[in-house]
């Protein structure tokens, strides 16, 4: 019987060679890596990608938005050849494009226009994902923040959805109780807090920036907007300052809150008897005074991927095909014209009227590639104001100074 003889040098050589062999095998096997944010519609699309091309393995990793954004940033900034397919929102994709991390899709779009009926995506939707005239992301969802409210409680109290913030505040106060908060708020930095601040700044103030990207969120109207946010936050659920969309969705489903802002893509989950205690009790309307966040999500191809771009595009396009999006129509606002106009879908999904109304009065976030970076300063200061660590005016002025300094360092205001 032969004995296995291992020398120290042999072990070192084997240890060095193993990763290369394993990586080589993994890549040769054609496993495509996808990283994405996670919510029900995106879980559906991930499944569609996994089965898009028979014989091609797609490994999908889904996680909360901030974590996905950070993981993608870490991977792309190190020019890693994984991931291959990357989630992108209308708000965040410009950062990646500006850094050269995404591959333009125009050539592939033209090549597969007929096969995947790509003209069905309206220009207004594609425009959300274009930078310097080039398309970088294939749209998969349209989304808008809607006003979620407990219709049964409103009806019992003889109330209707508020038309303005003062009415909203008064309703939140009147519905508030230890066991059920009058208001559901999601202020976890960065993304969730941006969503909510965006509504206040745009509905009550003049928005985030002027046309030269100078902060205006700290002007008198901006301060009033955050004062109002702080006042309404008194009636928010426990843990609101660390709550993102998942926690807020649970707050509605578990009968812990009465009303608030949430994405249209979360509406269907309210009627899921396996997860919700309020099936049929939640209704939706356009947010009071409009100007809540709207936008969309999609998928892009990494500029560093070593996989065949045609294969990657086909996977993305298959998951965004008309049939695929129709299957997800109860979980989102479809980004294809044919589906948006489909009366059957409109009737089958009771949140559609409110979602479309919210989309029409919505406002996209500023198309500033550094928006999420400066959002880190701004949301942190807003949270300090809302939790009473700092006066509102002081917090917003500090955030504005930090934002200006940061953008100056990135070549703005020359």
């Amino acid at each position, binding site marked *: 019987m032969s004995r296995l003889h291992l020398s120290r040098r042999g072990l070192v050589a084997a240890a060095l060679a193993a990763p290369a062999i394993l990586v080589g095998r993994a890549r040769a096997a054609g496993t495509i890596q996808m990283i994405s944010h996670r919510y029900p519609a995106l879980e559906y699309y991930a499944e569609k990608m996994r089965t898009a091309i028979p014989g091609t393995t797609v490994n999908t990793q889904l996680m909360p938005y901030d974590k996905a954004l950070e993981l993608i940033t870490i991977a792309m900034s190190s020019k890693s050849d994984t991931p291959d397919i990357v989630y992108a929102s209308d708000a965040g994709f410009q950062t990646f494009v500006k850094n050269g991390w995404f591959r333009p899709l125009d050539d592939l779009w033209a090549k597969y226009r007929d096969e995947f009926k790509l003209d069905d995506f309206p220009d207004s939707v594609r425009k959300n994902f274009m930078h310097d005239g080039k398309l970088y992301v294939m749209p998969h969802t349209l989304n808008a923040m809607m006003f979620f409210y407990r219709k049964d409680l409103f009806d019992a109290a003889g109330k209707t959805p508020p038309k303005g913030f003062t009415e909203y505040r008064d309703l939140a106060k009147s519905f508030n109780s230890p066991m059920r908060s009058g208001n559901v708020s999601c202020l976890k930095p960065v993304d969730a807090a941006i969503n909510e601040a965006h509504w206040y700044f745009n509905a009550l103030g003049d928005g985030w920036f002027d046309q030269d990207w100078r902060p205006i969120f700290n002007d008198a109207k901006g301060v009033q907007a955050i004062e109002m946010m702080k006042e309404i936050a008194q009636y928010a659920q426990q*843990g609101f300052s660390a709550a993102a969309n998942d926690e807020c969705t649970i707050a509605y489903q578990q009968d812990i809150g009465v009303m608030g802002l949430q994405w249209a893509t979360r509406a269907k989950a309210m009627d899921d008897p396996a997860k919700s205690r309020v099936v049929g009790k939640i209704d939706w309307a356009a947010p009071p005074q409009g100007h809540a966040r709207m936008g969309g999500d999609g998928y892009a191809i990494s500029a560093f991927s070593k996989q065949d771009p045609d294969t990657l595009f086909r996977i993305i396009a298959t998951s965004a095909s008309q049939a695929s999006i129709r299957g997800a129509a109860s979980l989102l606002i479809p980004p294809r014209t044919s589906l948006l106009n489909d009366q059957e879908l409109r009737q089958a999904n009771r949140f559609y009227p409110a979602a479309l109304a919210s989309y029409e009065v919505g406002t996209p976030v500023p198309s500033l590639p550094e928006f999420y970076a400066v959002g880190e300063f701004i949301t942190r200061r807003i949270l300090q104001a809302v939790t009473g660590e700092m006066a509102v005016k002081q917090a917003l002025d500090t955030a504005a100074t930090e934002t200006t300094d940061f953008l100056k360092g990135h*070549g703005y205001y020359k």
Partner: protein
Amino acid sequence: MLYPLSYAIWLSLFNYDLGSGARDFIGFGNYAALLVDERFWDTLNRTVLIVLAAVGLEFGLGLLVAYGLYRLSFGVRTLNLLMFLPNIVTPVVAALFLRWIFIGRWGLLSATLIGLGIFPPDFLGNPTWARITVVLADSWQFTPFMILVLYAGLNTVDQSQIEAAQIDGAGVWMLLFRIMLPSIRPLIVFVLAIRLMDAFRFFDTIYVLTSGGPGTATETITLYTYALAFRLLQIGKASALGVLTLLFVAALIALMIRLVYRRERGAF
């Protein structure tokens, strides 16, 4: 070890910004900017406060339990094993458990208290409670380490010294504080130094529990480093902050050793 450290120091000398694409040599510019940065000092103060509270609590509890185990005549091994369990759970996983315990209203703790008719505070949403919660979370995970090391230390104390003290009429606490603790002083310095160094890197638990919030209530220096590197993409400045943290912790440990051994040069 030297390569990553040298690389971090090298990067800290550059205005290396992934967002703008800049990579300019600026010498100690990042250090100068950090030293006048209000957020740096705020996070440093907060880190010191949280670390001292957590390590202090861990040491106090650890010492009490270790001494209790020392005096116990049966079941020591089983108890030691059971108490060590939190320490072998991966910090992120432990933090996820703890998040579902402390989360408001539907968390295990809140739901239980509500079931008993007590309306609980907002453990993760109130700034003061959030700080207390992260200290408790860290203590839950790392007190077992203190117990294990201190218990082992107490068992090394010379039995003849203990017996002599007992003959002289020393009680339980006098025995602990006047005989046993002075005997294991090098071990105490060692375990505190290890925990202080470790606690300064406190990241995973806070990241999962509060993400540094509410507001900035639990933002520590490592969370600020993370924000600089992966949210603001300022790699140079983040590296400089990492180096400053290293220097601070090294100075703290050196000071601690110097204070404890000021009369016994060369003892450690």
